[in-house]
């Protein structure tokens, strides 16, 4: 017997501003990450405080020689890991991150900086468009702030259990984001992305004279550089989970909603 298809309706999920700024952001963050790793490779070590304590960075990627062979070593605090081929030494070169992760692939701090600062402006202006449109338009309040019902511990626990079993909302419940999704988006939009800008500006000697309190806020310029690296790592982690969630939930429907704005809701499903 042929199955009766459940009726599905297309709802408007993402506004034009959200869709445009989302994809511009994808491009900007990709260039910022890869050019950022190029810049990091000029001195692949991290410190805390105002200055670099060259003898004891808290993170460092170095090359050493063992039995006539170069090996890549990553140090994190007192721990040392062999990371040949990825960190410290890769592609027959002494380098922090490997060629395939940096823009350009060859070593060029000057080019890395060019890409980084151009796309930093694009990222900031794009972010301002997103924020002004979506705060004024009510998208943040309406769709991103979790509802009171969603914040109950029992509800949050149930959501965590659902996520762990890759069980996603269907039907009417899929009309709004779940609480974990909302909290994650809020943390990325209002904590991690602004953190990238603030820690980035903290590394600028020109901005240091304009706003001396900014690097102080992070405990000094080298601490700000460390936080810049850590926030970027958390954004990479977010993107990985975000893309995985799209793939395991409803890849085509989600992708379409971020392109055309329309998201299909199956009616009659619970």
């Amino acid at each position: 017997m042929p199955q009766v298809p459940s009726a599905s309706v297309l709802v408007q999920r993402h506004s034009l501003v959200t869709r445009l700024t989302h994809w511009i952001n994808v491009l900007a963050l990709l260039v910022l990450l890869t050019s950022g790793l190029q810049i990091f490779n000029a001195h692949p070590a991290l410190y805390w405080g105002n200055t670099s304590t060259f003898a004891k960075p808290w993170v460092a990627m170095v090359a050493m020689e063992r039995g006539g062979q170069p090996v890549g070593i990553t140090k994190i605090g007192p721990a040392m890991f062999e990371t040949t081929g990825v960190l410290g030494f890769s592609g027959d070169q002494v380098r922090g991150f490997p060629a395939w992760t940096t823009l350009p692939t060859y070593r060029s701090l000057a080019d890395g900086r060019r890409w980084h600062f151009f796309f930093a402006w694009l990222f900031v202006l794009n972010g301002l468009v997103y924020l002004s449109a979506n705060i004024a338009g009510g998208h943040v309040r309406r769709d991103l702030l979790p509802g009171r019902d969603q914040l109950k511990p029992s509800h949050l626990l149930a959501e965590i259990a659902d996520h762990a079993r890759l069980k996603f909302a269907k039907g009417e419940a899929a009309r709004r984001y779940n609480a974990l999704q909302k909290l994650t988006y809020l943390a990325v939009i209002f904590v991690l992305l602004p953190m990238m800008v603030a820690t980035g500006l903290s590394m600028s000697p020109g901005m240091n004279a304009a706003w001396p309190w900014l690097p102080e806020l992070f405990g000094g310029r080298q601490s700000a550089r460390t936080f810049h690296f850590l926030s970027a790592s958390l954004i990479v982690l977010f993107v990985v989970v975000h893309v995985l969630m799209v793939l395991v939930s409803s890849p085509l429907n989600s992708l379409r909603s971020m392109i055309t704005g329309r998201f299909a809701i199956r009616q009659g499903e619970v």
Partner: protein
Amino acid sequence: MPATRRRWLSGLAAATAGAMLSACDKLTMNSGVQMTLARAEGLTRRAQRLVANRTALATEFAEHQISPDFRANGSTAPGDLEYRALVESGFADWRLVIDGLVDRPLSLSLAELRAQPARTQITRHDCVEGWSAIGKWTGARLGPLLDKAGLKDEARYLVFHCADTLDPNAPEGLARYYESIDLIDAFHPQTILAYDMNGAPLAVKHGAPTRLRVERQLGYKHAKYVMRIEAVADFAHLGGGKGGFWEDRGYEWYAGI
């Protein structure tokens, strides 16, 4: 998935990734792309000058924060014969020349430079590579020196000609270190020609007998081994035309970021 299909798919993925990476490199080397990306520099300079007062000071630190391991970059022991001779004579014959678009060109001995209006500051040196170190600098303030020489109206930039050849393989005019700054930075109170570092005469590796300190910009602007300061209307005719040794190699002229 059968092994052959998996091999085929991963081969395809690797080829696609490789093509994308080489496309990124080609884009980077494209002069149109370079020119577009370089436009951000002007925007950055104007934005920073908008939020920072002309005389806003770079943060100054306390004695106990001075780095015990201040790193030296660029030339650390110039092999240039003229410079070697100066080092051997304890800079007895060294003269600092200030000329170009000035009314009264100056030629100062080290003792005369040390007698000029001076400033001491403990500041953080930020290398373009990413590291920082704090040092205490004493030197002659550039502003009063320029007033003494009398800048002509056409003067827009100051070019610092240095004694060290940093790239011996480069063609004539590109081998020796030089730098340039505009008048806003030249007259900034913290802009000095430092001759003492951490209470002792500047060591050779840090630019003896004097180096520029222009505290609101990155390390490569702080020219070492300064021999001559030339006031110019523009710097297109010097070196590679970009206003500095590293600028000629793709780094920003405005190094406030």
